């Protein structure tokens, strides 16, 4: 497993608040890396730096390096739109556009200039198949995306992210608004997708991190306390603070 995302001595400030403190880590490609930690520990902030979502928050200042595939994503030459095409994101609340299922998935490719109906059809089908939603929606692709269940909507959002052929998929609490069955489906989907994509997920559900991720990073007060193979972190963590947190005796 090679490194895809290389984070070095990263500091992030929201105004005077020091939200990320000297974070360094290598995130391997084609694997699932989970960020865990109590609220306010910086895990979502770090996730959002990976596709520069923090740029939109006024007063945000960043120091240090984040390279994706060797390219510093904060350098002036990097176009944020292109970056976000390579680094897709799925959020806590499913957020399909108020359009048809088809148009939701075709939205990104159209934006990037694909007009041919045949090509779009193919992308829509492939993306929906990848998101394990195709069989459920193939007969009513023109129906509104909002008619789908929450779990289906979330898989549609994943299909939409996959449609522009990203390398990385960021999942920010992507199952916390879903019922347990839909949650398991998304977890299974993540397992399948990791053969082709690099997945980074933030989760409040430690057992989810334990179930699906290959690596787990535990954050506390903006710092990385421990970054280990998931199996090691949940069976025999190095740091007592990690042990206390995952054992539910802290935070």
């Amino acid at each position, binding site marked *: 497993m090679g490194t895809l995302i290389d984070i070095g001595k990263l500091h992030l400030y929201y105004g005077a608040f020091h939200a990320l403190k000297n974070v360094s880590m290598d995130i391997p490609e084609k694997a699932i890396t989970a960020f865990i930690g109590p609220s306010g520990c910086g895990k979502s902030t770090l996730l959002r730096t990976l596709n520069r979502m923090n740029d939109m928050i006024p007063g945000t200042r960043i120091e240090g390096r984040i390279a994706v595939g060797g390219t510093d994503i904060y350098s002036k030459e990097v176009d944020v739109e292109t970056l976000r095409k390579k680094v897709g994101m799925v959020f806590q609340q499913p957020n399909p556009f108020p359009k048809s299922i088809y148009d939701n998935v075709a939205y990104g490719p159209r934006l990037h200039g694909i007009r041919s109906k045949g090509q779009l059809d193919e992308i829509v089908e492939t993306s929906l198949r990848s998101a394990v939603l195709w069989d459920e929606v193939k007969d009513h692709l023109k129906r509104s995306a909002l008619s789908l269940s929450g779990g289906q909507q979330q898989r549609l959002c994943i299909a939409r992210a996959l449609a522009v052929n990203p390398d990385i998929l960021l999942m920010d609490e992507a199952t916390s608004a879903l019922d347990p069955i839909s949650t398991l489906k998304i977890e299974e989907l993540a397992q399948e997708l990791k053969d082709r994509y690099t997945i980074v997920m933030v989760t409040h559900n*430690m*057992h989810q991190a*334990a179930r699906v991720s290959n690596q787990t990073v535990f954050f506390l007060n903006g710092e990385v306390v421990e970054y280990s193979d998931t199996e090691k972190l*949940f*069976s*025999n*963590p190095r740091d007592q603070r990690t*042990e*206390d947190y*995952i*054992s*539910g*005796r*802290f*935070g």
Partner: protein
Amino acid sequence: MMTTRKEFDLGLDELNALIVQMGKRVERAVGDSMLALQSVDVEEARRLIAEDKELNAIEEKISELGASLIARQQPVAKDLRRILVAFKIASDLERMGDLSVDIAKVVVRLEGQTLIKPLIDLPRMADIVKLMTYESIQAFVLEDTELAYKMAKDDDVVDALYAQIIRELFAIMMENPKTISQANLLSFVGRYIERFADHATNIGESVVYLVTGTRPDLNS
């Protein structure tokens, strides 16, 4: 900010208490069965055989409580090891109980016989494994790996005594073949105690695993 998990911690405390209870019973069982052997007290031996049921019942309780804690509390890391180790220790203690029963059964088979020799080394072995049992459970309660390692060293003494007993019984059998049947039974007893000590050593290994998360081999 610390949070507590009261229900879970109470469950883990209960699990520990059950292990301690089993340990005490096993310690007593091996000592009492040796005393019964020394005086060929068949009635006492039968009582000890019957008493083993209670030990098995505690082991079952540990299995049920541990399974319920896993299902309901989803323990990880050391909490999980604590439960896994409780299962393993309970199973070792249950086997130790069975080995004490095996000694008591030898007593029953010796009914009406006088011993071919005064027993000296077998009771010494029994004393050592009693201490090993006590220390292994202490090591568990105190999470004291040093004590676990120290206890495991006694296993070598037990093995040496066992070898000595076998040699001695061999000599007696060669001298007088009429003793073969009883000498054979006594050598079984030596073997039972030697196995008993191995299980105590296993408990020491469990303690080290609980504390460090790595599995040592204290038998080597």
